[in-house]
């Protein structure tokens, strides 16, 4: 039976509204599919562009990556390496190309794609194998099948470390630092320390990342997910499907910071904090950005014909319509989260009221330029119109 992409396009276009909020049906296969196809597309462009250097520094790497590019390991995609590859293509970075390609190889290797390869790097890097953080190395040799991997790393001082790691279900076990992971309610959110990040050209952000993860912060994450589960359970699939990696920023006086970088799918960052409710809010907020980032891999939210900028109260700046959309999408979901928390009996009722007082006027301002804007595409309208209805329904 032959495939019919026309039918696929119809299914796809009818699924856009699921990215708006958790009150719309979501085609669960779509999120990993978008991440995987995006990862492959970026990887192809990256490997083509840097072919010469990568073949010189890691001659057997393509033998591992090519089967994946051809379609093996469909779930590959939620990894930082694809964002790094995108940045590298754009800024023409050459010093980290082999490292990024090796990150792709460890990513697909840990997902079960067999291979034997080696690579050398200009500066020490720490690669990941599943949820194991490998030692800092300037060269690495890997021989793996879907169940076992022999990994040899050489440090800057030629210190040799040999690891044999084995697969136990979805996890790899071995004598390496284990990346702490939030697992409540089926989440698989890896909490990354600073040296697990490459994020070239985001040096300021990386400098703000904490180099160690305190177990108590893991407890706060767990408690935050418990709040979502207990008071707004419809937001559990929302965060579960979109959030895969997080790094923690140094705390700052009186402020909490969070963010997503568009081309790093599944990766967020947020401030260290001792209270679970603001962390729960930020998980919902960043999951909204991640949903929008996934959807905009399929098409833009506007056609570029609106050249105006509009005031965005959350950042106190003039913004293009696409960023007004991003703010409306995230803060509408946050307001729905707080309204549902209050409705379902959370103890911090006053905080919910305070958030209502802040967010409602923001959203009124953000909504005005979206209303009837002819520049919005089908994707743009699918993102915001269901939220406008839900904000009226869940008042």
């Amino acid at each position, binding site marked *: *039976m032959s495939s019919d*992409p026309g*039918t*696929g396009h119809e*299914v*796809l276009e009818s699924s856009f509204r699921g990215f708006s909020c958790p009150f719309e049906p979501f*085609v669960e296969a779509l999120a990993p*599919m*978008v991440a995987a*196809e995006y990862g492959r*597309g*970026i990887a192809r462009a990256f490997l083509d562009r840097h072919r010469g250097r990568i073949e010189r520094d890691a001659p057997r790497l393509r033998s591992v990556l090519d089967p994946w590019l051809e379609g093996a390991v469909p779930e590959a995609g939620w990894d930082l390496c694809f964002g790094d590859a995108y940045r590298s293509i*754009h800024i023409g970075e050459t010093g980290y190309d082999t490292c990024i390609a090796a990150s792709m190889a460890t990513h697909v290797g840990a997902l079960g794609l067999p291979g034997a390869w080696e690579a050398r790097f200009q500066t*020490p890097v*720490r690669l990941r194998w599943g949820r194991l*953080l490998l030692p*800092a190395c300037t060269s690495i040799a890997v021989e793996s099948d879907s169940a076992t991997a022999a990994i040899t790393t050489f440090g800057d001082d030629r210190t040799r470390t040999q690891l044999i790691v084995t697969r136990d279900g979805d996890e790899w076990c071995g004598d390496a*630092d284990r990346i702490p992971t939030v697992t409540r309610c089926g989440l698989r959110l890896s909490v990354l*320390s*600073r*040296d*697990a990040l490459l994020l070239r*050209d*985001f*040096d*300021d*952000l*990386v*400098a*703000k990342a904490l*180099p*160690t*993860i*305190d*177990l*108590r*912060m893991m407890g706060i994450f767990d408690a935050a997910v418990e709040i979502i589960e207990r008071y707004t359970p419809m937001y559990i699939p929302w965060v579960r499907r979109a959030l895969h990696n997080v790094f923690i920023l140094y*705390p*700052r*006086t*009186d*402020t*909490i910071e*969070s*963010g*997503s*970088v*568009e081309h790093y799918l599944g990766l967020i960052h947020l401030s260290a904090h*001792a*209270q679970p409710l603001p962390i729960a809010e930020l998980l919902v907020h960043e999951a909204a*950005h991640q949903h929008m980032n996934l959807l905009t*891999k*399929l*098409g833009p939210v506007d056609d570029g014909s609106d050249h105006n900028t509009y005031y965005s109260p959350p*950042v106190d700046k003039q913004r293009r319509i696409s*960023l007004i959309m*991003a*703010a409306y999408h*995230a803060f509408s979901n946050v307001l729905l989260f707080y309204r549902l928390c209050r409705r379902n009996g959370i103890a911090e009722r006053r905080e919910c009221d*305070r958030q209502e007082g802040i967010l409602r006027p923001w959203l009124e301002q953000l909504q005005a330029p979206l209303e009837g804007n002819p520049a919005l595409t089908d994707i743009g309208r699918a993102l915001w119109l269901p939220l406008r209805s839900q904000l009226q329904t869940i008042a």
Partner: protein
Amino acid sequence: MPEPKDVSKTHQNLQLAVKSKILERIHSNLTSGGALVASTQYVKSDGTNYGMYTKSDPNSSLGDIWERVFPVAPATHAATPQLQVTQPRKTTGSGG
């Protein structure tokens, strides 16, 4: 258990549609030279006073930092990876 044929076919059609849209977008992004700075960053007022750390305090010990977040019990670390020094180079844009 194998998927029924119609479910599998729907999935396959969807995948083809996704792939074609994504490749179109990647091509457009990489050839237009735009979309380099595309991040959202949100700083919200906290209302609590849990920490006094600032970025200009590079010698502050990690224990101290976590003590400021969690001021009661002593810190225990889930991982103690080696510190990698990064040199700030440029600030990226923000949105949100």
